[in-house]
């Protein structure tokens, strides 16, 4: 278990586990801090702490807490004593937002500071927020000497849409549509995580058929994501043949989903209580065939690409993320597994049909671009096996359980999205959402990117960034 020591503010006891998330919630007149931790043995634990005055910062002990504390500070004005830099995270100074430096009264204290690297020959390269491609926006500030990156600082949250607040305006049974738009290329993972939290509040079991269809969709989403990433990695080193090939295979999978489910990215499929659409027996047969063909083509092309010396030369040793940095920052998903950290929600905290599934959780040890590419190929293989197994033996029965629209209570749920552990924490009052906290895997993994980039040449940044495959919108919300 990746270790991190958490010293909770009101007590002097220490727990050792993996920090999942920190967020605040206002209930009545009280402000409650939630520390969600994954403990070896008991699993997820939600420690609550009522805020009355300044709170001791956890960041010096557990760097993974830094962005969470900055976010809570900005949203709720909580002071964290001992935090190295409580700069605003979500909103930037701009003509629309005003100068946040002058806004001390509202808790927006200060403005994001860029670390200045000084010395002979050091210069700064600002990149973004508008990037040179069909990509989401974010600002990167490189301090370089010659071609070598000394330091990279991120300014993200350009796509911050107040999503957690928008959840509070929606009836619980409709908000799954918003969950699908948190990170548009992982929409089913978000929808399922949201639905599971809602079902947990009502202590509802979904029918086995619905669980199987969700699993098939989630694994197709992973396959699409990994094949797309692998192709994009090849494209980033100028190897355009496998890049175009992977783009074709990705489209093959999307069109197979259209044939079987009437949707490319599995939007509108998951609903609270099950799924909206079934797969027919003939549809399952065809889907199985098409996915097998596309995936096997992918393994063939990936194998050839990975054994091409010019590609090996660029991938190997580029963007190494040390296991220590990954552990301290609580990195999740394929990025963690490429540094030898064997974390996978599907195996560690199984949900839905994963409770009855056997699969490998591959790990690799070098933490470089090559490791992250290899991990994706290996994971695509176990996804394929799971999809084929479940499509061959779809359970009978209904695919949807009726669900109350007046539920109250709180619960959380996690899903292994293609990018890693995804958390939804949900509180309802008579079917209205009081609070919905979303911790996407990218929120966890973004802070690790600068550690992988330092020491590399700036021209390798797009490649390293792509090998992390981070979602801006999922992080910014």
């Amino acid at each position: 278990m990746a270790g991190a020591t958490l010293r909770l503010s009101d007590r002097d006891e220490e727990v050792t586990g993996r920090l999942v998330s920190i967020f605040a919630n206002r209930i009545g007149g009280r402000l409650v801090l939630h520390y969600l931790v994954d403990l070896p043995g008991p699993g997820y634990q939600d420690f609550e702490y009522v805020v009355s005055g300044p709170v001791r910062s956890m960041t010096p002990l557990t760097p993974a807490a830094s962005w969470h504390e900055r976010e809570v500070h900005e949203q709720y004005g909580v002071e964290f004593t001992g935090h190295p830099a409580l700069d605003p995270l979500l909103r930037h100074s701009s003509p629309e937002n005003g100068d946040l430096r002058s806004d001390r009264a509202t808790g927006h204290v200060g403005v994001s500071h860029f670390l200045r690297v000084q010395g002979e020959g050091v210069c700064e390269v600002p990149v973004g927020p508008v990037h040179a491609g069909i990509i989401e926006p974010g600002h990167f500030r490189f301090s370089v000497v010659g071609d070598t990156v000394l330091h990279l600082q991120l300014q993200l949250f350009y796509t911050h849409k107040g999503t957690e607040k928008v959840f509070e305006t929606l009836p619980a049974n409709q908000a799954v549509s918003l969950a699908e738009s948190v990170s548009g290329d992982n929409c089913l993972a978000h929808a399922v995580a949201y639905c599971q939290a809602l079902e947990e509040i009502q202590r509802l079991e979904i029918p086995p058929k619905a669980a199987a269809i969700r699993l098939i969709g989630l694994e197709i989403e992973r396959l699409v994501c990994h094949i797309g990433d692998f192709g994009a990695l090849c494209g980033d080193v100028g190897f355009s043949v496998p890049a175009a090939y992977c783009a074709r295979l990705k489209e093959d999978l999307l069109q197979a989903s259209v044939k079987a489910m009437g949707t490319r990215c599995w939007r509108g499929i998951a609903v609270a209580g099950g799924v909206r659409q079934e797969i027919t027996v003939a549809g399952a047969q065809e889907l199985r065939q098409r996915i097998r063909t596309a995936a096997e083509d992918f393994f063939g092309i990936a194998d050839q690409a990975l054994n091409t010396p010019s590609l090996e030369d660029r991938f190997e040793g580029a963007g190494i993320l040390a296991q220590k940095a990954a552990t301290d920052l609580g990195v999740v998903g394929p990025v963690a597994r490429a540094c030898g950290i064997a974390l996978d929600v599907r195996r560690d905290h199984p949900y839905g049909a994963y409770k009855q599934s056997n699969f490998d959780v591959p790990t690799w040890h070098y933490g470089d671009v090559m490791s992250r590419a290899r991990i994706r190929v290996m994971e695509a293989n176990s996804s394929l096996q799971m999809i084929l197994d479940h499509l061959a033996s779809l359970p009978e029965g209904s695919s949807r359980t009726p669900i109350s629209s007046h539920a109250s209570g709180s619960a959380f749920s996690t899903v292994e999205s293609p990018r890693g552990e995804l958390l939804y924490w949900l509180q309802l009052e008579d079917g209205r959402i009081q609070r919905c906290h979303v911790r996407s895997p990218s929120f966890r993994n973004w802070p690790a990117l600068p550690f992988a980039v330092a020491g590399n040449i700036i021209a390798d940044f797009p490649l390293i960034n792509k090998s992390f495959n981070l979602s801006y919108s999922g992080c910014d919300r």
Partner: protein
Amino acid sequence: MITDVVLRSLKSRSQLIPVDKLLNDCAASRMPEVIAQALTEPIATRIADVCPTGAITTESRVGEAMTLRLDYGKCIGCGRCMDAGDGAVRLAGSFSRCGVSRKELIRTWKINSEAEESNAAFPAVAREAIYGLIGRALNIRQLDPGSCNGCEAEITALTNPYYDLERWGIHFVASPKHADMLLVTGPITSNMAAAARKTYEAVPWPKLVVAVGACGCSAGIFDPCNRASRPTETATIPRNEVIIGPVDSVLPVDGYIPGCPPTPPMLISGILAVLRRRTLER
């Protein structure tokens, strides 16, 4: 080895989808279509009530039949109206409202009159117009001032071997200074508004702006005020303070492509429609 990869690629058959199969195709967009004959007042009220973005609304005036309004610019294709519509709403078989004006995305029906109030029919893009487009060059700069990445994923798909946007001489370029058209997703966040304006200013004249997706057209599900006219909405809905709004709240827009996200054929139809309309106007 590289030679194996190239050989493999050369051996595989062409995936290119012919032009006439793409235009007006909306398979998998999950866009709804209203069957006017089957529409009744209870159904209209019910489907308006289940719509999470306020795309479907009803209006009642004393002494007049109820009016149903469907705004494709707000629709995210969640399918709830089809579940609740008792056969009065179904999946659209084809869709010609891509690259049109914002007003043309809205359709209205008087209930029990079977006729559509708004201009119902859109001419499919004529074959001559399609061939007229071949051979010209258009440089597109895609701009994401706050999207969820769903539209970006579909825009990226335009360059894959199935759709191959380059067959029309249309390229995606890295700099706004090389662009003729901005393809803008949405909603525009307050953090990105300044960058969006600067990007627009950097595009040389003449320039076109196309708003993409439900969020680009109307801010979609991210603007709670879109739902203000729902029959069951009683409490006042707070404004979303960290977004500015749809694309046209910051930039002048020449055409709208709805969908959540729009499928690649809808994107292609929309881009070509805007181009054609603007060419005819000049």
